[in-house]
């Protein structure tokens, strides 16, 4: 078998917090192959977010090893990590993290600004990504003029704009209602179907059921790692919810 996209060996992270050390991650070894859709679950304080931040090169481990597509990432300097975040990883956050008073297109183009892509090319690529997430007509809207679901889709378009190898989503549906959550998950499933590797952190079982594989954390360790036999189809669910709502509204 080819090299896994993500390999961690005994990955550990500890924080100094008010005089004593907190072991957030106590040696995690997992392999994730290209094309997988993984949900990382666990209660708060289980280390799942810490694991996610390490995968995203937002934080550096205090022990163990992390290889991204065979390249050793742990131990790289901050500029090299910035380059990896810029070109190989796309982030989707719970609170969307779009720049306020900045158009959707410019938000999507943001990563390209830091990889030295010229203005016209930036605009072209951002426009294409915006169309892919179904918001072609909202390019010049500011985040405040978009609904939560639309904002998250803009954020997904931003994550995709630099053609990353990995999408990391940290509670992407945490701030959304059920139907919008399903729509966002449908979009992620669609991307995964096209071959994109998606790693998603959530504490909701409903959301984890859309993934193909679920890794469960507790107290800084992996306690369970299993494949989902038949992941639910978010698009179908979203359609059902929409239909129900139509019926609801039609009622006198």
């Amino acid at each position, binding site marked *: 078998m080819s090299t896994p996209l993500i390999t961690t060996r005994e990955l550990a992270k500890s924080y100094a917090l008010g005089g004593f050390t907190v072991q957030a991650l106590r040696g995690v070894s997992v392999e994730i192959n290209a094309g997988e859709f993984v949900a990382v679950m666990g209660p708060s304080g289980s280390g799942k977010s810490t694991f996610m931040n390490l995968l995203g090169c937002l*934080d550096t481990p205090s022990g163990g090893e992390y290889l991204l597509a065979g390249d050793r990432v742990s131990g790289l300097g901050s500029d090299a990590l910035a380059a990896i*975040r810029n070109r190989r990883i796309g982030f989707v956050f719970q609170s969307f*993290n779009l*720049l306020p*008073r900045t158009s959707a297109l410019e938000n999507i183009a*943001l990563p390209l*600004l830091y990889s030295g892509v010229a203005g016209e090319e930036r605009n072209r690529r951002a426009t294409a990504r915006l169309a892919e997430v179904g918001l072609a007509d909202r390019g010049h809207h500011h985040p405040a003029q978009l609904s939560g679901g639309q904002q998250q889709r803009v954020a997904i378009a*931003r994550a995709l704009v630099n053609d990353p190898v990995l999408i990391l989503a940290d509670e992407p549906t945490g701030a959304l209602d059920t139907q919008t959550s399903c729509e966002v998950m449908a979009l992620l499933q669609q991307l995964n179907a096209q071959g994109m590797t998606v790693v998603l952190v959530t504490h909701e079982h409903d959301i984890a059921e859309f993934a193909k594989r679920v890794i469960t954390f507790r107290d800084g360790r992996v306690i369970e790692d299993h494949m989902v036999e038949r992941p639910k189809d978010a698009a179908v669910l979203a359609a059902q919810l929409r239909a129900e709502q139509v019926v609801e509204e039609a009622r006198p």
Partner: protein
Amino acid sequence: MNVLASIRIALRALRINKLRSALTMLGIIIGVAAVITMIAVGSGAQSQIEDQIKGLGTNLIILMPGSSTSGGVRMGAGSRNTLTEEDGYAIQRDVSAVQASAPTLRGTGQVVGGSGNWSTVFYGVSPEYFEARNWVVAQGKGFEAADIAGSAKVALLGDTVARNLFGDTDPVGQVIRIRKVPFTVIGTLEKKGQSLMGQDQDDVILMPISTARNRVLGQGAGRLRTVGSVSIKIRDGESMTEAEAQIRELLRQRHRIQPAQEDDFTLRNLSEVLSAREESSKIMGLLLAAVASVSLLVGGIGIMNIMLVSVTERTREIGLRMAVGARGRDILTQFLVEAITLALIGGLLGIALGVSSSVAIGKLAGWPIQLGIEPVALAVGFSAAIGIFFGFYPARKASRLLPIEALRYE
């Protein structure tokens, strides 16, 4: 990331907090405007003062004979009879930096004329004297070559003498007696007022040098035709010290002084006034620098303060930018450009305010103002430097944030 993109981001960030940005700029605006106004008014005043000082004769050298020694007692400057009228003419002829060189004889005496009498100083002068000492004939006419050649008994009266002898009546054409010698008054001199030493410069009578020598002082005999002093005016823009050196060289040759010997003459100038002028411009410069640095420092601290607030407020934005691939130096550039943009816009507004207030002051107060390109360039450079200097610390603070901590910042 290029500079243009950084400037666009900076302008957007500044637009978001319009009032705050404007208030922050106010420090720089006032600072730059103050500097430009002060330089405009200050240099206008200075050039006016310089003109006045020039009128006093800072480019004037007085040449006098050296001291004589009699039985071991030195008699002081001017006590020897080594200086001749010809020396004065030779200086005029041979030293190119000299505009006018006027040999002068001085005497005092009782003057009788009109309705009274008056004791005053009279000078026997050559026509160059008027140019050398900035005398202007107010009424009547000056000396002509024929007056000098023929030792004509004609005189020009200073304002004080004219008033004391004739009161309000016109003295031109009247006859006066100087040491009992009758003279015709051919003109009066324009009023000069007091000298720096408090002497009345208008208490004076001018007559041809030949007349003074032959008819009043009685020094006609003798071949040398000695004079009491020579007034030498140096052309504008020529170096005083260089001109002095040339005059000294010429006189040493003419007087056949051996290299080891001392000069038998002295050269004096108004170096005190000159150094006073330098002092005044130095003080003016210091004053400007003090005002400029205080106000620009205050403006700069304002910028630093607001940039620190801005970095704190936008920590999450910084975190996000880092998450999508901004390096530390991208963040540094962004905030630095923002600070510089803030300072430069403030600087440009300050220039506009400074120039218009200078013009307004010039119009309203009637002061001479002088607007140059240098203070404007200086102000622009200074504001950019302030942006860099006071923006660097907040920008570096932003660039050193850890991405994960910045993202999680509440």
